[in-house]
């Protein structure tokens, strides 16, 4: 490829689209939807980057990936250089390239975004990440061991990132994970068709192996060890809390505990972590209704709806019966939908039905206490509320019944309080999140840092990774005796 294109020529190259599985095919399997760029497509897309002197895209990235550098190397055919540039700031590019909301972070700041067609930074990131997973050209290196011991609680995006950065700096890191597999929300929450588990496992295993990070699965901190025990008995110098927001919310309406009303957490964990879609090859069963209502319209709701569709399609293939229906029931309008546009688009393509301005008021059960319907009320939008979005108000007398046999609650999650058991001095907000300094991640308890959803409430993978990164930098300063943040 010619390297000396003019900016005008670069801007005339169309944004490359990534091949995807056809919607009708993919709704009957759990394979990845987006198939990734070929080298040719990736270099074509990379050629669109104008290599700005002041790259705004980098400002938009929570971990400050060296975007122009990796794109330049990629288009010059220097894949090793692209990987090196990427991994200076991002330890997990194959994951971020798939799940980051680039459209509101790096890509929105791209100068080409003004014309509506920013460089597809996320897809290029994924391409480089996948190349590295396959070729391992840039193993992370560990600095001279410092002898300092770090306990990371929670092996999700925040914990892994913090662990990797501290491992690179030579500290002795142990990750405590409550489930049997590392990855947190990446393995229990995000479905296979959006983020293949082999990608997560490879990325984490490779990182842990390179940096000699010890993994302790099946460790529920707060029960097996308290934070104080980690610090005072188990010999850890510091603790980083990256336990996420794992506690589900349920509506307070009649019928909420009937069979067939599940939290999105339970539904997705059965499907993803436990591989329920492969029952009985895997032991964990999963049921899906013939008519499913998913309550909420965030990314978790889209994931639940799209898993439901797939389970319905697989069942129909097996039994020859009707496929069924999946509804997203959301009390606000399309404008307020919190999910990524791409996820909504994919869900629509696959056949999810959206019921906006609709709110459940009661769930009906049959004589076996199984869900057999849902009463809803129509909503209208009033004045903006404290979140800045227009407040949904019920329209009196507009109640109606929906024929459903399964209801999945995807209403957001809160931090799990288990880890705070006997954690004196660790201040929390009224929402149950840990009070921690935004820049450093320092908590109010000495030698404890926190970051990710446990601090912010449910947010994104990349913002949790950013928090893990900032905390790692501050923990390193502390371990080297450069800062003394707590007087006690």
């Amino acid at each position: 490829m010619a390297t000396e294109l003019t900016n005008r020529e670069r801007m005339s190259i169309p944004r490359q689209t990534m091949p995807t599985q056809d919607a009708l095919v993919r709704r009957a399997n759990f394979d990845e939807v987006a198939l990734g760029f070929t080298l040719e497509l990736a270099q074509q897309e990379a050629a669109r980057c104008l290599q700005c002197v002041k790259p705004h895209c980098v400002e938009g990235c929570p971990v400050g990936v060296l975007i122009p550098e990796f794109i330049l190397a990629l288009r010059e055919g220097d894949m090793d250089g692209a990987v090196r540039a990427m991994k200076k700031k991002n330890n997990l590019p194959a994951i971020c390239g798939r799940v980051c909301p680039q459209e509101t972070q790096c890509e929105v700041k791209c100068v080409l975004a003004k014309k509506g067609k920013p460089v597809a930074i996320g897809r290029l990131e994924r391409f480089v990440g996948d190349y590295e997973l396959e070729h391992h050209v840039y193993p992370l290196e560990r600095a001279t061991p410092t002898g300092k011991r770090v306990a990371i609680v929670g092996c999700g995006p925040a914990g892994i990132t913090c662990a990797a950065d501290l491992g690179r700096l030579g500290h002795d890191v142990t990750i405590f994970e409550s489930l049997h597999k590392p990855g947190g929300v990446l393995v229990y929450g995000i479905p296979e068709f959006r983020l293949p588990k082999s990608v997560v496992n490879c990325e984490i295993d490779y990182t842990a192996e390179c940096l000699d990070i010890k993994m302790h699965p099946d460790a529920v901190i707060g029960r097996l060890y308290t934070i104080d025990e980690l610090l005072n008995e188990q010999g850890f110098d510091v603790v980083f809390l990256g336990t996420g927001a794992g506690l589900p919310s349920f509506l307070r309406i009649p019928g909420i505990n009937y069979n067939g009303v599940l939290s999105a957490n339970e539904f997705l964990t059965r499907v993803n972590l436990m591989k329920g879609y492969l029952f009985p090859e895997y032991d964990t069963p999963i049921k899906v209704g013939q008519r499913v209502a998913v309550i909420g319209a965030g990314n978790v709701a889209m994931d639940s709806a799209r898993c439901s569709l797939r389970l319905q399609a697989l069942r129909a293939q097996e039994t020859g019966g009707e496929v069924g229906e999946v509804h997203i029931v959301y009390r606000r309008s399309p404008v307020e939908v919190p999910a990524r546009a791409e996820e909504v688009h994919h869900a629509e393509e696959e056949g999810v039905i959206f019921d906006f301005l609709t709110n459940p008021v009661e769930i009906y059960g049959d004589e076996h206490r199984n869900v057999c319907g849902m009463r809803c009320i129509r909503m209208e939008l009033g004045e903006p509320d404290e979140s800045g979005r227009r407040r949904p108000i019920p329209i009196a007398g507009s109640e109606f019944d929906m024929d459903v046999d399964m209801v999945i609650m995807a209403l957001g999650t809160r931090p799990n309080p288990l880890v705070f058991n006997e954690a004196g001095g660790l201040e929390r907000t009224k929402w149950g999140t840990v009070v921690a300094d935004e820049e450093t991640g320092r908590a109010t308890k000495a030698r404890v840092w926190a970051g990710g959803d446990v601090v912010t409430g449910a947010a994104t993978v990349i913002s949790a990774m950013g928090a893990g990164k900032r905390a790692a930098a501050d923990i390193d300063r502390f371990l080297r005796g450069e800062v003394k943040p707590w007087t006690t």
Partner: protein
Amino acid sequence: MYKILHKETLSDVTKLVVVAAPEVARKAQAGQFVIVRVDEHGERIPLTIANYDREAGTITIIFQEVGKTTMHLGSLEPGSELATFTGPLGHPTEIENYGTIVCVGGGVGIAPLYPITRALKEAGNAVISIIGARNKELLFWEDEMRAVSDELIVCTDDGSYGRKALVTEPLKELLERDGEIARVWAIGPAIMMKFCALTTQPFGVKTIVSLNTIMIDGTGMCGGCRVQLAGGAKFVCVDGPEFDAHQVDWDLLMARLRFYLEEEKQAVEQWQHRCQLEVD
């Protein structure tokens, strides 16, 4: 991985397994449970801790082979390893000196009842225990229970051993005979616990049950274990597993336990088929 060190067959369908889990044993207390996953394809199931030995670093679990996972678990011999053994989970039993108390164990529920009874006895309570099962074959740990009780009543549904009665009969008599009973613990099948609750309710004696519901993570994440109490829903894994029996919506609880009945049946059939093939 967690190695099985010892195994006992308590009845045709009841097995005892001692597992090496020193970190769990270090913290385990009466009333708590563990989540077990047999192998990489396995499901996660909760099992209440039947005993623990901090020095040896072991946890004892007792289970009835009622589903694929428990059948698989029961087929393992010492030296085998379990993929997951997470705990100790849930709140420990609130052990105090209440005065005179009654501990009722039905079937495999005798197992989790034992460490609770022992702890209550050690705390100075006068302990009357009732243990029961469908028949003699299904009874176990009579001697163990006798050793930690001031009085032990044994019954079977069919009269093949001890008194021919459901556990609720002697329970009712004790409540009528002794106005001093401060508290009752009842652990066993849901239907037994329900009827123990109905038995004690007219006497106004606080009754504690330990619930074993469907759960995945055991840490409050899935909500599959939720139970409807008079004051609202609670999670068995993090709010329990012990609850005030008089607050529990038993019919909903039992309906929820039946949700995956079809799939459980299918898994058992497949397991038995596989075992048959191995025998052939």
